[in-house]
């Protein structure tokens, strides 16, 4: 028997033949991982060219700002969802938080009488209440998912329904008008010639890129999403990180809701209804994996940008509004199929 092993040791690797799985072979490292971040950039350029051909308005400054502004609110949901997905969880309730957080603020600050408001708090409380409501929802989500170990999909599906119901309840199904000025400020002001909501959106995405790419916290999210046991073994406090990311996600959703509230100067009972599908689609098209551990904030941004550019092109092309939804769904499916094919994760 020992002669077997002696043979192993002495023959070793025959010279000239590469080791099947060997240490000797040094791969020429293509920074594929980072190229993947820019996977959608060619598509965005193509859409821009098509848009310009369809209607020369497309590439004008006003139209581009229009695209960025209409996507700024929902893009914060995409940012939030991307963080949660990278950490290997998901949060469906974001779309309800998007409506409920500013809804609660409006309910408490809008004067009683004309609408469903209670007028319990002065108008200056609008923004703090929105933020607090977002944080509280995040805490509840994290309590169920992290503390009690329930499945994130089911918990946030339940939360989606409960929160939606709460907004319908407090508003009586009506829309809040006459919002305090503090709540409409961010969504309606211009900073340096651009709507403030675009600045807020770009700033938060920039922060997201830095946090996810250059901080231990961000890398911990990737580690947890990739292999939670390994992350724990590396000394990452996985539970605490998940608490923080779930609460941050709800906060981002609340801020997104606040931006939309400001732009429309109202909170409808259905604010955010159905947005979660677009959010997931944008994140996945942008290269964020539903299984966790993979994807970037920049990719998520290109995902939502692409979807809104296509929508804008369709509108400019004069596609009847009734058909936009069906086309939109078709585009999402096509984009998903393309990103699956180009994502390099096809079956062997």
């Amino acid at each position: 028997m020992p002669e077997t092993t002696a043979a192993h040791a002495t023959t070793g690797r025959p010279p000239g033949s590469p080791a099947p799985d060997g240490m000797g072979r040094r791969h020429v490292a293509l920074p594929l991982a980072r190229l993947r971040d820019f996977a959608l950039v060619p598509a965005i350029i193509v859409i821009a060219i098509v848009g310009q051909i369809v209607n020369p308005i497309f590439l004008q400054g006003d139209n581009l700002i229009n695209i960025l502004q209409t996507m700024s609110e929902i893009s914060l949901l995409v940012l939030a969802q991307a963080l949660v997905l990278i950490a290997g969880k998901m949060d469906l309730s974001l779309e309800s938080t998007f409506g409920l957080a500013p809804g609660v603020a409006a309910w408490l600050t809008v004067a009683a009488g004309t609408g469903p408001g209670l007028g319990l708090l002065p108008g200056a409380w609008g923004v703090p209440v929105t933020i607090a409501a977002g944080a509280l929802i995040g805490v509840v989500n994290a309590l169920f998912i992290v503390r009690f170990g329930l499945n994130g999909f089911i918990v946030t599906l339940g939360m989606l329904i409960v929160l939606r119901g709460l907004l319908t309840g407090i508003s009586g199904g009506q829309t809040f008008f006459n919002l305090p000025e503090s709540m409409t400020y961010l969504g309606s002001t211009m900073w340096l010639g651009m709507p403030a909501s675009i600045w807020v959106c770009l700033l938060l995405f920039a922060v997201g890129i830095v946090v996810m790419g250059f901080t231990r916290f961000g890398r911990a999210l990737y580690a947890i999403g990739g292999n939670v046991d390994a992350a724990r073994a590396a000394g990452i406090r996985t539970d605490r990180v998940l608490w923080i990311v779930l609460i941050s996600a709800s906060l981002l959703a609340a801020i997104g809701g606040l931006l939309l509230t400001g732009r429309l100067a109202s909170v409808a009972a259905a604010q955010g209804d159905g947005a979660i599908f677009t959010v997931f689609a944008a994140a996945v098209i942008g290269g964020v994996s539903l299984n966790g551990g993979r994807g970037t904030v920049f990719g998520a941004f290109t995902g939502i940008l692409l979807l809104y550019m296509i929508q804008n092109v369709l509108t400019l092309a004069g596609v009847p509004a009734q058909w936009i939804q069906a086309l939109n769904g078709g585009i999402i499916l096509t984009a998903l199929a393309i990103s699956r094919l180009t994502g390099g994760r096809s079956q062997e």
Partner: protein
Amino acid sequence: MEEIAGGPASPPPARGDGPAVAARPAAVEAERVTKRYGETLALDGAHITIEPGATHALVGRNGAGKSTLVSILTGLQAPDDGEVRFAGVPAPRPADRDAWRERVACVYQKSTIIPELTVAENLYLNRHDRNRLRLIGWKSLWRKAAELLETWSVEVDVRRPAGELGVEQRQFVEIARALSFGARFVILDEPTAQLDGAAIARLFERMRAMRERGVTFLFISHHLQEIYEVCDTVTVYRDARHILTAPVAGLSQGDLVAAMTGEAARLRDHAVRVPVPERAPVVLDVRGLSHGEVYRDVDLRVRAGEIVGLAGLGGSGKIEVAETIVGLRAPQSGTLEVAGSRPRPGSVPDSLAAGVGFVPRDRHHQGLVPLMSIADNVTMTVPERLGTAGFVSVRRKDTLAREMIDNLAIKTPGPELPVAGLSGGNQQKVVMARALAGEPRLLVLITPTAGVDVRSKEFLLGKVEESAGNGTGVVIASDELDDLRLCDRVLVMFHGRVVAELPAGWHDHEMVAAMEGVDLDA
């Protein structure tokens, strides 16, 4: 944290060269360690002493208490009773993970690498270098990771995603990471289970080099010859107790097996197999099977009752050929006939219907559904025998499962237990039971005894011989010499081609040389 992370990039201090060897405390000492899980006694007053700079083997059959000892030595579990000391100092508190990491490192069978992240980031996860803004400096991280790997002569590009690494490279990266915490005591838990011969040789070379530099190893393996090759001392556990610690030199393999099994037993003692008659029907006829560079022009005929080995190192194509025969892959060209019928290429149901039973490569991935019961797992391939019109009769299923549990001597209280609760050897028996459930004409076994203890291995191979005796043709794709020894003939593959055919009675060195692609006569 930072100091520790920074330290190991410089060569580790030389140890173990002083004259006062005898005066030094043992690197690791565990005394009177007892651990209980509910009713089961996992360790019963067991002890182990590992000298600094030694490569110490720990062997024992599945359930002997090896895994429990590992989790106690790594601080993942506290013993109910007993004491653990590192270099004479009592072990740190269980919660003090950092202190544990400085003393002991473990490379588990299950990877603790995060596939999506780069090698560099895996090495310095959660202790990344940060600049003045407290942001991660990727350049310096890559440099440091490259230096660390260079220190231990691991040649891997640190900017590759870790998921792209093979098992071998992954293990070296994990060892390097473990050492970077400052630990000079490394536990290797069955590191060779998924490696081929050449990779094992490289691992051993590296272990010897690290031992030169003062690293102490605890090496766990089911392969006794590996212990003879690389270890200097061996400790045997059996039934949760310490049985024996002895220098490897001077301990015969028979004695070692006897210590493990509690009885004098020869490792294998084959009756000479009766040659298969020429008239026996051909149950597998493969002609010109090719798939790009993976395998080319493979011809293979197996008669009823014949056992044919398919040997080769990792990447030789043997596994891919076997997987093509069972329908897990489709060939690009060539024909494949099973017992006279031609299953559709790449279709597992068709192959099963044609009379193929198989044990897939990796029981964790392809062999078992861990949370389903033994009964469900063993009857998965034969739904038609469980009832009509798609309904499953629980009674019939349990009866069938009970038969197979008896037949394969699976140690379980009953067929309803989830397979996840079984030991490795018994899990593999479940996979084997399923392969045999359909009473196959052709049995295809891919590395059927990987990660299985000596006894279960012998038992499984005995079952293979038994079913060949009943007229089943058998193909065994493996690089495990014990698996190949019972074959009537062995086809050896190298870089996708069949390069040799050895009739039964080959010498170990012939087989190894053939697998390595070396011509001994040259």
